[in-house]
């Protein structure tokens, strides 16, 4: 009964459709097209080649051949390149000194320099890696020529150059795909923002439009059936969206999901329910809609940083490490990383499952308060 009434309300207002369906669809479309290449490629860099010799030009060509580096300019001197960097046109500068070729050939150990702009850290660190690699490779190439000239075989020269080789195995995300790294938490996080906000709104609008008393009368003051009836339509709709997200990410895009789709769907369901519970809790705590909406906004937006999927929680100050556990998205991330990305047994994140379930008690905790609000409160803007 309450549920039918809620469905009617949902379909009577554009706001619900926009925030439950249209915006979430836009989010997934936006982030997947933004990161369609997985890694940013062709990041602009400039070269200052004071030597203009065949050796220096070869080095520059090799640098340009890296997928993530694109030489967009040959500056005539360093200050010109630096100006370009300051204007944000390039993220890196590769500097080859005068007499580079001559010094290499006569063993005078010339020095190349590279400069990266770390005010944009992603681009800066990617260019840094390419420029460092080319410097080491360039050095190795010269050395290899020397050793070959001394009569060593190619194979032996390579081994002498690099006796110890580091082989890397990035577990779960071998291509270092940024879309895998970011989207799998960003998108559910955005959904969670919408859920918390809309839950607060859906609860508050009853008081605002003075329908809450009638609603309580309808079910003989049984606040739990009000909550369930009111919130179930949102649970269903948002779960539908979350399922869509999971299918697109893990089936269509093929992002790592080692323990199977049902396992991720369970995780999504827990996030949907936890977010709704958080919404109920916040509204009951401060039953002035605009203020509880502000609070919800601060908390949910903070969860992107504090959940630790970009900057690890272990590196935050101690107090914040503890508080991170209060955010549903933190547990969603831990469960996803454990089950989806790494394919470990759920046993290792049992704590996060318990935390997710604990959120479900929040609404019960504040149910009496919510009933009083519905019974006696009037709308305050």
């Amino acid at each position, binding site marked *: 009964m309450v549920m039918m009434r809620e469905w009617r309300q949902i379909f009577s207002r554009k*706001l619900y459709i926009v*925030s439950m369906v249209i915006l979430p669809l836009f*989010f997934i479309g936006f982030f997947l*097209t*933004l990161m369609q*290449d997985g890694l*940013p*490629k*062709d990041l602009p860099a400039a070269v200052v080649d004071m030597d203009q010799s065949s050796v220096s030009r070869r080095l520059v060509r090799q640098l340009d051949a890296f997928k993530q580096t694109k030489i967009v300019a040959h500056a005539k001197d360093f200050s010109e390149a630096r100006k370009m*960097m*300051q*204007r944000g046109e390039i993220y890196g500068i590769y500097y080859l000194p005068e007499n580079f070729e001559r010094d*290499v050939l006569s063993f005078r*150990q*010339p*020095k*190349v*320099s590279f*400069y990266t702009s*770390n*005010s*944009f850290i*992603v*681009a*800066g660190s990617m260019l*840094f890696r390419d*420029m*460092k690699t080319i*410097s080491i490779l360039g*050095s190795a190439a010269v050395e290899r020529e*020397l050793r070959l000239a001394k009569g060593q075989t190619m194979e032996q020269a390579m*081994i002498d*150059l690099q*006796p*110890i*080789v*580091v*082989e*890397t*195995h*990035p577990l*779960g995300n071998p291509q270092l795909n940024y879309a895998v790294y970011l989207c799998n938490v960003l998108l559910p996080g955005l959904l969670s*923002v919408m859920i918390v*906000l809309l839950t607060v*709104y859906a609860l508050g*609008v009853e008081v605002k439009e003075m329908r809450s008393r009638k609603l309580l009368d309808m079910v003989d003051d049984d606040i739990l059936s009000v909550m369930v009836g009111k919130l179930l339509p949102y649970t269903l709709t948002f779960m539908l969206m979350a399922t869509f997200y999971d299918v697109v990410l893990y089936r269509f895009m093929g992002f790592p999901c080692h323990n199977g789709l049902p396992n991720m769907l369970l995780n999504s369901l827990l996030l949907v329910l936890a977010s709704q519970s958080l919404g109920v809790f916040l509204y009951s705590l401060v039953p002035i809609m*605009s203020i509880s*909406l*502000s609070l919800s*906004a601060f908390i949910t*937006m*903070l969860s992107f940083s504090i959940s630790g999927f970009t*900057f*690890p929680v272990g*590196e935050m100050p101690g107090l914040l490490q503890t508080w991170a556990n209060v955010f549903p998205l933190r547990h969603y991330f831990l469960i996803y990383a454990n089950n989806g990305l*790494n394919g*470990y*047994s759920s046993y*290792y994140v049992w704590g996060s499952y318990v935390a997710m379930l604990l959120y479900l008690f929040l609404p019960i905790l504040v149910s009496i308060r919510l009933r009083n609000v519905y019974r006696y409160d009037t709308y305050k*803007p």
Partner: protein
Amino acid sequence: MKIIHYFWKQVKEGLADIFVVWRDEFSLVIHDAAILMLFIAAPLLYPVVYSLIYSHEVAREAKMVVVDQCNSPETREFRRMCDATPDIEVVGLCANMQEAQEALRRREAYGIMVFPRNFSSALANKEHAYVQLYSDMSSLLYYKCFLLNLTEVSLKMNKDIQIQDMSNATGREEEIATTPIEYEEVAFFNPKSGFASFLIPGFLMLLIQQTMIIGICALAGSIYDKKQYHVLEPIMRHKRGSFRIIFGKALCYMMFYGLMSAYLLWVIPWMFNLPRMGDPWNIVAFMLPYLAACIFFGMSVSVFIKEKETAYVLIVASSLIFLFISGLSWPAAAVPWYWKALSYFFPSTFGLQGFVKINTMGATIPDLQTEGIGLIVQICVYFLLSTLVYRYRVMKACA
């Protein structure tokens, strides 16, 4: 004489109208706890929390376990050198791979370094000796720590090995033969590659825009909801009345955000030791158009908001879109053209880029042509749009 008199009257009336609108808006703001939360509490507290989250700037002592099947002087040396780097901490030696993987599952470590049984014999026989690095990818930052430092350590050890092999050469010859080309790496603007130094300046600009838009939309929505737009009718009926309304309101928001900007852009970077390369006057000169663009943008967008509360539901989540589209979290060069085109509609795109350039990279106003022109175009367009929005709403309320 008559013309001057008329003109003078117009100016006086205009200023009086602007004052009335400003005063009413100001009293609306200070009597509304929710708006005060947006205009004052959020800018005061939010940056502090964010700066604290990222205050360590970089990952230090990423935890790693070692499986050493060779256990020779060489592997012990390699281990010791890794542990000595500031970025890696070897937290344990595991007997086998199973034990090491278990440590990863329990999140006691984020990486495994494996030396195979034949590591030292391979070195002795002049074959490649492999070090295997396994890294948990739930944090890219730890992976980067492992990769960079292991590479560095291996380069150093390789050089030592080569020098040992050339026992008959002199020191200088060895040096040159192992590194024919030297290199030097310099990280500009944010030498520590710190997260706070990189993220917070942009975040502050975004915070200004977002709290402002939500606030302006919430105010506009609540007037609409309470059907009070007709109050503005007398002023609207004056010549250029809608200009006066827009100016009056904008002045009110400008006042709040002028103060908050001083706190956000001056006190916060000072408190958390973030980059402060910018000249204060350049920052002021850049912030005025940015704030104006944000205000008029907010007033234009408010046409979609018919209720105070919907402002939050519809706008809050857009912050992340703005963050990624503006070229901070995702390099601008890698943003597809269609999203880039869209990004020019938002003040945050220019504001964020411009402020990072001034504050972090020490640019001056003449370096910011793109951003400056972008913001000025936005100011003009959104100013005209917002006069239309308010005229439409007031007239509708009176009809």
